[in-house]
């Protein structure tokens, strides 16, 4: 006879298993509540609250513009350094925030995971979704800064391709998929080897230098492009510049390289995480 829908079979799993979508769907309300909790609690007892989403990239941009633009005089694709960095940070901040929140999933929620069952993947997914909000706030503030620029410098060539803005969510989705995949890898490794806790902060610092946040891709020798595109954060950063500022270096084959690297990271990350999560409470 067929099993009733609600029958739960508990047994050791051998090898890898993939995501249990039905289980994940059953807990969708928890996903929304966790997203909402992230938002509701992040800025409790802060004065500026969600305005931090605007100030943080602006301050970083000012520092970059002074250090890399004024002092080091690094080229910025003929763009005003402020717009160049602010645009690059859009994609970069989403990646680094999501990567961080995902990679600390297991260690930060060990207490919760040790006491109650729900699909563990809900927690990193909640981070992915709640970071969408900060992304759109940043995008909004970027568009405001851009508008001010265009208004105060009439006749400039750069500006968003408005119709192409529809592509922004798609690129964001790729970025989310990669951040999740890479974060899950690190989360799994951290639960097994504490060495990776030390590594994660360091990794994200180095990663920024292999991503065209500060140095435009056009300044990278063309024979390296394929390797640079293997870093799945590269193309989203360049695509955003292309869509929002109309400059930058976008190449369709490299977008496919980037997508393939993203898919590989996400799928392997999910598999590794699923393997670790089933018994990680035993070793935490």
């Amino acid at each position, binding site marked *: 006879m067929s099993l009733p829908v609600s029958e*739960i079979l508990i*047994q050791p*799993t051998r090898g890898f298993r993939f995501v249990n979508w039905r289980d994940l769907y059953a807990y969708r309300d928890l996903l929304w509540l966790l997203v909402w*909790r992230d938002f509701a*609690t992040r800025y409790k007892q802060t004065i500026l609250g969600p305005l931090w989403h605007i100030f943080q990239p602006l301050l970083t941009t000012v520092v970059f513009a002074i250090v890399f633009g004024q002092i080091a005089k690094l080229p910025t694709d003929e763009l005003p350094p402020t717009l160049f960095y602010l645009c690059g940070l859009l994609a970069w901040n989403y990646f680094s925030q999501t990567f961080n929140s995902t990679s600390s999933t297991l260690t930060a929620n060990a*207490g919760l995971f040790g006491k*109650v069952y729900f699909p563990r993947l809900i927690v990193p997914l909640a981070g992915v979704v709640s970071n969408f909000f900060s992304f759109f706030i940043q995008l909004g503030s970027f568009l405001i800064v851009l508008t001010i620029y265009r208004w105060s410098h009439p006749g400039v060539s750069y500006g968003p391709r408005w119709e192409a803005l529809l592509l922004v969510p798609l690129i964001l989705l790729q970025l989310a998929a990669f951040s999740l995949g890479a974060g899950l890898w690190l989360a799994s490794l*951290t639960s*097994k080897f504490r060495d990776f806790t030390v590594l994660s902060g360091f990794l994200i610092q180095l990663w920024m230098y292999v991503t065209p946040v500060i140095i435009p891709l056009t300044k990278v020798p063309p024979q390296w492009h394929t390797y640079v595109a293997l870093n799945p954060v590269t193309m989203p950063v360049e695509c955003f510049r292309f869509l929002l500022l109309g400059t930058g270096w976008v190449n369709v084959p490299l977008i496919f390289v980037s997508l393939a690297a993203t898919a590989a990271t996400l799928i392997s990350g999910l598999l590794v995480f699923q393997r670790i999560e089933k018994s990680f409470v035993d070793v*935490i």
Partner: protein
Amino acid sequence: MSRPIIEVRNLSKRYQLGAIGATSLREEASRLWDRVRGVPHPDSKEFWALRDVSFDVQPGEVVGVIGRNGAGKSTLLKLLSRITEPTSGTARLRGRVASLLEVGTGFHPELTGRENVFLNGAILGMTRAEVRKKFDEIVAFAEVDQFIDTPVKRYSSGMYVRLAFAVAAHLEPEILIVDEVLAVGDAPFQKKCLGKLRDVTSREGRTVIFVSHDMAAITSMTSRCLLLHHGATLHFGTTDDTIGKYFEYGESRSQIYTAPTRTDSRPYVQRVEIRTSKQAGVQAAGQPMEVTIELRHPQPVGGACISFQILNQFQQHATHIWIFDADEAYARRPGTTTLTCKIPNVRLNVGHYSLRLFFSEPPGGQIFDSLDRICPFEVVRLGETTLWGWRPDACVYHEEATWNLIHPRIP
């Protein structure tokens, strides 16, 4: 018999002692190297927290899980709640499962009571619609109406626990797995929780797996019990049988008080021993109990007074028993005196008790010794159940009484 709602077959869980805790890369590499060479790694010791446990639970049944610390109770609950995976064996659960291993899991201090009810409900597996439907009931049960929009960090610990339990108590799973969460909270609230659990099982026909050290709660709640010992099933049967087995395997907790050695010549109580009807300080109600008191008096005592009170777990004095030199002469010469007090028929209510003992001269004289909370013991009722269950806070002791129905008689 209907199809069991829970079927556990040879469930086992092994822990690698050497590997508990995250390892460093270096350790892992040396472990791998040892494995490649086929040499056992020096510190990989195995430990079976649970071994070949099998049992069935019928729908609507309340099954207790008992055993000493380290018997594997928590591991079993963790496996059944899917927090961790078994090493071998299977368990089939036919229905929605909610586990309550801790009260207030996932409560966020910055969020209000209302917000936490929704969050905690979702963590425990409820949908928002379900929580919304139950919300008023939850708040009323927790008695926090006025504070429901206050962040829970401003709650008293009592309020916090009440709210947290209220959420859990209003879950509607077919199977509820409860750890000793009732140990928190004050006595009236504990009573309320037990009452709620009883409702859930008797009225709504839920299946419950209940772990507790509190034999009174186990007796009143469950019909069958699983007794675990070092990870294996020692007994699975009716609650009374299983509790009986549990006490046979009890490690003896010291029911003996022994005074530290003294050098002065002041009289004192050297030793007090309580002999309960079962091992490990467990006294069956209605059975005899003995208290033996040894006095050391290097000098003669004129008019010794010995008395002890039996205190229940709420620190109420259940009874006072004494023997004075005026009733029967003792301790009038230097040396030791041993007295035995026999209580032929213990009528104390179920619960945990201890003794408070005094050794003194007659009123106005010196107090030689006063010992508080010595010789702990527990009173249980085996093989007897009542409609409401046996509860330590119901009364202090049971009076012998007979009832007669005068009017009108049911034909």
